[in-house]
């Protein structure tokens, strides 16, 4: 009876002891793991929200393997890039309108181009790794990337060396540790270089706008993560109907004086009409080219030529509020009283009160 009790007691003690031992080992290992798993995503989370915070994010397993959390970091970068892609496109001109900004305010907080390319590179590696492309890369290179990544995101290695039996963890630790006090910028640059060497095309096709950054590749300029949108007219293709105009009209429209002169010299009539009855002078006036208008008039362009709607260049000048040109045309004896097909004189179409447009007859 006593034997039986003793046996039970020793079994119980043995169980308790082995449980405690197992627990101790697990604590030790998880402690080591934890020190190695402080990765970018955590580092960033820490800036924004403490791990203690309750909420959806704290569901993340704090002891997830380093790889997974780093991957999330990458994914979050992608997301933040999308969420805040107003950033890069605008930076080029940020300098011009921040008159009131004292640059010292931003020391150390401003994200650099290198940061952006680096986070794009890490996001790319995460994508590649997820697709097992990483298998192509030797583990040496992978370790090298790992070390550079840690230096870039966390600085020199200060974690204790993992136990020798934990081979992978130890190899990672060594890769990080051997880079010593390499500056983060250098680490980022090396990381980018390695990725570029491995996958030369990784940035290809990404819209490297203004800063060579990754970020606003996709969507455009400045749509914030929330809020209204600044829309402008969508550019619509003009229908190719039976509309016809000649080179001389194009040159007049675009203000290309030299080309237009060549046209005239090669014998193109200065009052040539396009399919709408417009002369080069109509086009020059329409687009507001005073010098072109003067040139055309000096080459005997008809100041009172009518288009198919009965409008003269002076109608155009009045309609488009081309003040200097209107004045010039009037001085060149453009007719103030000529009516278009709707019965309007240039004065009727003129909303401004230009003294030279007052009709002398009425």
């Amino acid at each position, binding site marked *: 009876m006593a034997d039986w009790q003793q046996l039970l007691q020793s079994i119980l003690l043995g169980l308790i002891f082995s449980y405690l031992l197992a627990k101790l080992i697990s604590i030790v290992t998880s402690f080591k793991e934890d020190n190695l798993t402080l990765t970018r995503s955590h580092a960033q989370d820490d800036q924004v929200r403490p791990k203690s915070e309750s909420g959806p994010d704290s569901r993340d397993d704090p002891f997830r393997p380093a790889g997974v959390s780093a991957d999330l970091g990458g994914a979050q970068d992608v997301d933040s890039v999308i969420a805040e892609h107003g950033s890069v496109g*605008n930076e080029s001109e940020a300098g011009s309108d921040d008159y009131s900004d004292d640059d010292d305010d931003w020391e150390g907080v401003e994200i650099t181009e290198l940061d952006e390319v680096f986070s794009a590179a890490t996001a790319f590696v995460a994508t590649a790794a997820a*697709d097992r492309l990483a298998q192509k890369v030797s583990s040496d290179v992978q370790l090298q990337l790992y070390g550079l990544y840690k230096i870039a995101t966390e600085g020199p290695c200060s974690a204790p060396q993992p136990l020798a039996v934990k081979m992978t963890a130890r190899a990672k630790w060594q890769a990080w540790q051997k880079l010593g006090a390499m500056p983060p910028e250098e680490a980022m640059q090396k990381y980018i270089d390695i990725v570029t060497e491995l996958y030369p095309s990784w940035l290809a096709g990404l819209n490297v706008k203004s800063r060579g950054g990754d970020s606003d590749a996709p969507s455009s300029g400045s749509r914030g993560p929330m809020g209204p949108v600044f829309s402008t007219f969508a550019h619509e293709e003009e229908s190719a109907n039976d509309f016809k105009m000649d080179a001389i009209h194009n040159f007049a429209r675009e203000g290309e004086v030299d080309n237009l002169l060549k046209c005239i010299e090669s014998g193109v009539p200065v009052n040539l009409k396009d399919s709408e009855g417009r002369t080069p002078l109509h086009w020059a006036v329409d687009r507001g080219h005073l010098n072109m208008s003067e040139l055309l008039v000096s080459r005997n362009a008809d100041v009172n030529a009518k288009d198919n709607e009965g409008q003269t260049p002076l109608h155009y000048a009045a309609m488009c509020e081309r003040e200097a040109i209107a004045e010039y045309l009037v001085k060149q004896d453009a007719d103030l009283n000529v009516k278009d097909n709707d019965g309007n004189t240039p004065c009727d179409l003129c909303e401004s009160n230009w003294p030279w447009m007052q009709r002398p007859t009425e």
Partner: protein
Amino acid sequence: MGDSNSPPGSPKENPDHDSDPNQLAKDDTALETIVRKFQDTMSVGKRHKFWETQPVGQFKDKEDTSLPEGPIEPPTPLSEVKQEPYNLPSPYEWTTCDMDSEETCNEVYVLLKNNYVEDDENMFRFNYSKEFLRWALRPPGFYRSWHIGVRAKASKKLVAFITGVPARIRVRDEIVKMAEINFLCVHKKLRSKRLAPVMIKEVTRRVHLENIWQAAYTAGVVLPTPITTCQYWHRSLNPKKLIDVGFSRLGARMTMSRTVKLYKLPDSPATPGFRKMERRDVPAVTRLLKNYLSQFVVAPDFDEDDVEHWLLPTEDVVDSFLVESPETHEITDFCSFYTLPSSILGNQTYSTLKAAYSYYNVATKTPLLQLMNDSLIVAKQKNFDVFNALDVMENETFLKELKFGPGDGQLHYYLYNYRVRQELKPSELGLVLL
């Protein structure tokens, strides 16, 4: 958290694969796919790490019509709402922006003027006026604590801003108290510091503290998941200026002269009894509007106080006109637009683009087309350069005929913590957010 989630640059847990030579050839062809995939994630943004953690309609649930309409998460007891603000990166601190203070209002104005929304080509930037901001942020029952700023600790400079205002929004038969979230703006130099997610969480927390659990907001980007996607349309009022500043383009075969002629408007409104709304019209306009908005799936539930605030004309902020029958003196029709100027970036001649945005319009006797044409005429009289409208409500019925042209901007509407069974047509939406 399987093997597929591999780290950037860290070795696989199982390094045996690394030396498999057969893998190499396949990998080379795979590279292209992966580069494409990577670029897709960068561009389309299939993953929304932040929004996937939020109670919003998720893309994956889009086809699932069995999910019930209504709140996604039930309200939590107020005592369980986090009492302290979320943590900001250490150089920054939260501030509540008192829009009554001229100084604070000016700071907000300057932040937005220099850093808020721009067009795709960075030629224009919204320039909401101070009066507009005060109007937009102080409707009946507004909470000062929802006007949230972020300052740099050292310089006290305002570097970010987000706001909510309370609104009663009806979704089908349910009237839901919501926050309308708007004016999220992070200083250009702090973009990519990931301030936006924490600001959204902070405004959400402060909304929760008022026992409000739903919100409405818009975005130019696709997030999980729009209740509808609207299109902007523009009606030139001053075509020459719009072309000169690059808001619209003149086709190579089109003349300025003909364009100007095309957009000419009569000097004065055509409808007899068309006049500016006055305070005494508030009850009649409220009745008109309530009745009209009831036909839309999602629309604000306006009472007289709301109408007085949102629709009674305020100089350079909101304009409202109505038709009073000359015989019966009944108020039969109503139209309104708000004033939102923009800075023109880098143009020597012009510095400001003056845009009117169609707000709420109700036509019961006058044809809507004629009412809106009168609206264009008064906008032209008031020297607006362009009249903008979304294709919400019945707007589609007049846009083309009144010579609106499609814009390059889409606006997506969202509800926070409220599921709508299926995506709405823009014409089913009766809500305009500023």
